[in-house]
C-alpha cells in the first residue's frame, strides 16, 4: 500500500497531536490537577505506523497502556483522554473505573485491557480464532512492551496464533526499559522478534522511530494475515524518553546523558525531517498544526474540567451483563 502526501501529513499530524496531548498530561500532573500519567512519548511512530496499516474501525486491536497515539488514531479523542486523566464520568474506556491509559473503545473494536501484562496477547488470539471460525477477513493487532514478552501468557498467546495460523499481528514496543529493567535482563536474544523463531511465525525487527518503516512492515503483516497466511511478530524499537510513569524517578537507574542522547532519535523529529526533505510538509504547515493541536488540547482540558464526576454509587455497577445500562 502506497502512502499519499495527504496520508503522510495525516500521520505526522496524529504523531504531533499525541505528543502534545501527552506533554499536557505531564503539565497537568505538575500542576496537581491530575494524580497519574503514564506516557507514550517516543512511541508515536510505532503506534501511528501500525494504526495506519489497519482498516481502522473494521480490524480489531488489543492495546496496552502506552498506546495513546494508537488510540487517538482509532478515534479516541484528546477530550476523552483528559476526562480519563481526571476520572470523569464521560470517560469512554471505563466511565472512570480504570486508571488513565487503560484503554477501551468499543466503536473502534479496541478491547478493554488490565494492568497485569500480556493478558491481552491471548485475547488477541481468541479474537483471531473467532475471525477465522467465521471466515472473515479482519485482522487483530495487539501491542505490548518488551519486558512483558517474558510473561508466560505472552508465549501462550503467540503460540496459539502460530499453531492455528490466526490473523494476528503481535507488535512489541521495545523502549529499552521495563520500568527500570533493561532488555538484557528480560531476554537472552538480541530482539524479541527472535522469539518468533521458536514459536513458528515470522519475526521482524523495525526501527520504531521511523513511522514509514513501521507502516511498511505492519502493512505486510496485515496483508499476510488477511490472506489467511497467519500471524507475524514485529518488534519496533524506540527509547522511553520519560520515566515509566508519573510515580517513577528514572534518575535512580539511568543517566541524564543517556536520556539526552536518545532525544536525538525522537520519532517526531525523524518524521519531520523526512517529510520536509520530500517536500510533503513545510515549516508553515507544521506551525499551523501546532496551533491547531494547542487549540484542541486547551478545549479538551476545559471540557474535562467542567465535566461531572460519576455519582459515587455508580461504583456498584455493572458487575454482570444484566446490569448494563445503555444510555
Amino acid at each position, binding site marked *: 500500500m502506497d502512502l499519499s502526501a495527504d496520508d503522510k501529513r495525516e500521520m505526522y499530524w496524529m504523531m504531533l497531536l499525541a505528543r502534545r496531548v501527552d506533554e499536557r498530561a505531564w503539565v497537568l500532573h505538575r500542576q496537581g490537577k491530575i494524580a497519574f500519567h503514564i506516557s507514550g512519548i517516543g512511541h508515536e511512530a510505532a503506534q501511528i505506523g501500525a494504526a495506519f496499516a489497519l482498516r481502522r474501525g473494521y480490524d480489531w486491536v488489543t492495546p496496552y497502556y502506552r498506546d495513546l497515539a494508537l488510540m487517538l488514531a482509532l478515534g479516541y479523542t484528546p477530550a476523552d483522554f483528559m476526562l480519563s486523566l481526571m476520572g470523569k464520568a464521560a470517560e469512554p474506556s471505563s466511565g472512570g473505573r480504570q486508571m488513565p491509559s487503560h484503554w477501551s473503545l468499543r466503536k473502534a473494536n479496541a478491547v478493554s485491557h488490565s494492568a497485569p501484562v500480556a493478558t491481552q496477547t*491471548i485475547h488477541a488470539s481468541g479474537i483471531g480464532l*473467532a475471525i477465522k471460525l467465521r471466515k472473515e477477513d479482519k485482522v487483530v493487532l495487539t501491542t505490548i512492551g518488551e519486558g512483558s514478552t517474558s510473561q508466560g501468557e505472552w508465549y501462550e498467546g503467540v503460540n496459539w496464533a502460530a499453531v492455528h495460523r490466526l490473523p494476528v499481528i503481535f507488535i512489541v514496543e521495545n523502549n529499552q526499559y521495563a520500568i527500570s529493567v533493561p532488555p538484557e535482563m528480560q531476554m537472552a536474544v538480541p530482539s524479541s522478534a527472535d522469539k518468533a523463531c521458536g514459536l513458528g511465525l515470522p519475526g521482524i525487527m523495525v526501527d520504531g522511530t521511523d513511522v514509514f518503516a513501521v507502516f511498511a512492515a505492519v502493512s505486510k503483516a496485515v496483508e499476510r494475515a488477511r490472506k489467511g497466511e497467519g500471524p507475524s511478530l514485529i518488534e519496533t524499537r524506540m527509547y522511553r524518553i520519560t520515566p515509566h510513569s508519573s510515580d517513577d524517578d528514572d534518575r535512580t537507574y539511568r543517566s541524564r546523558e543517556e536520556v539526552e542522547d536518545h532525544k536525538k532519535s525522537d520519532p517526531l523529529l525523524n518524521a519531520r525531517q523526512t517529510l520536509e526533505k520530500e517536500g510533503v510538509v513545510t515549516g508553515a504547515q507544521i506551525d499551523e498544526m501546532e496551533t491547531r493541536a494547542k487549540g484542541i488540547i486547551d478545549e479538551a482540558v476545559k471540557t474535562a474540567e467542567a465535566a461531572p464526576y460519576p455519582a459515587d454509587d455508580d461504583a456498584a455497577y455493572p458487575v454482570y451483563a444484566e446490569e448494563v445500562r445503555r444510555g
Partner: protein
Amino acid sequence: MAEITLIEAVRQAMDEELARDENVFIVGEDVGRRGGVFRATLGLFDKYGGERVIDSPLAEASIVGVGIGAALYGMRPICEIQFADFIHPAFNQIINEAAKMCYRSNGDWTVPMVIRAPYGGGIGGGLYHSQSLEALFTHTPGLKVVIPSSPYDAKGLLKSAVRDPNPVLFFEPKKGYRLIKGKVPDGEYTVPIGPANVTRVGGDLTVFSYGMMHYYTLQAAEQVAKEGIDVEVVDLRTLYPVDRQTLLASVRKTGKALIVHEDNLTGGYGAEIAATIAEQAFSDLDAPVRRLAGPDVPAVPFSHPMQDWFMLNPAKIAEAIRQLARY
C-alpha cells in the same frame, strides 16, 4: 424420560447447544478426537468437526484467554479445564480478565463463556486430580459459580450457563460422573442459574450442600430418617450469586443448620453460608451453625487409607446430623 448418568447429561447439554447456536464451540485439552479424558465430549468432534471442538495446546491460561477473546467477538465458548486442579495457571485470566471485563469497561465488553472443570476426590487422584476449588472463585464478583449434583440439573444448568451473558464456572463432581444417575426429559429444558433447590423436605434440621456431597447428604438423610430424624436438604446448585432467600427460609423453618462440603474447612464456602445464617436468622436458631468439611490439609492424599480419612461420606454426614439433632 430417560435415565442417564451425570456425564451423559453434560454431553447432551453441549451437543444440543452446539446444534442450537453456531457461535458455541468447545476448546480444551483432548476434547477433540479423544472426546475428553472423561469422555464428556465423546462424539462431538465427529459430529461438529475440528473447528467447533478444538484441541488446545497444553496451556490452561490460553484455554481461558482464547475463550475470552472469542467471547468478546461474539462467540460462546465452552472452555474445558481437564481437572479443576489445573485451573490455577488460568486464574489470572478468570479473576482479572473474565470477571472484571464488564465492570471495568462500564458494560461495553462482556464475556459470555463457560469454564467447565471436573472437581473433587475419592477417585484415587491424589493431590492434583482431586481438588475442590469453589471457594477460590466464589469470592469474585463478576463470575457465576455453578455445581450440579444430578443429571437433570447438570444438563439444565449447563445449557443455561452456555446462554448466560457472563462468565460461568461450572464445576462437575467427577466422582459422580458415572455413579450418579437420574431421569431427564426427552425434550428441551433449562434450569435457571441462581435458585437453590430443596431436594428433601424435613422439619428437624437443614443440611446445605452441593455437588457430590449433596448426593451423599441425601443418602445420609435416608439413614437418619430410620432413626426418626427428619432432615431437610437444600442443594445450593448456584454458589455465586447464592440464593439467600431459599436458604434462610429453610433454616428459619427448621432452626438448625449443617453445611457440608468436601473442600477444606477454613475459609471454605460454608463459612459464607454460616455467616449469612448468623447475620440474618440468628433469632430463629435452636443450635449453633455447624460445618462438616474436608480437613485443613493441602489436598487429598493418594493412598486409600489417607484418602478415606480425608473424604466425607454418607456415614460421616449422618453422624454430624445426629450430633446436631441432639443439641
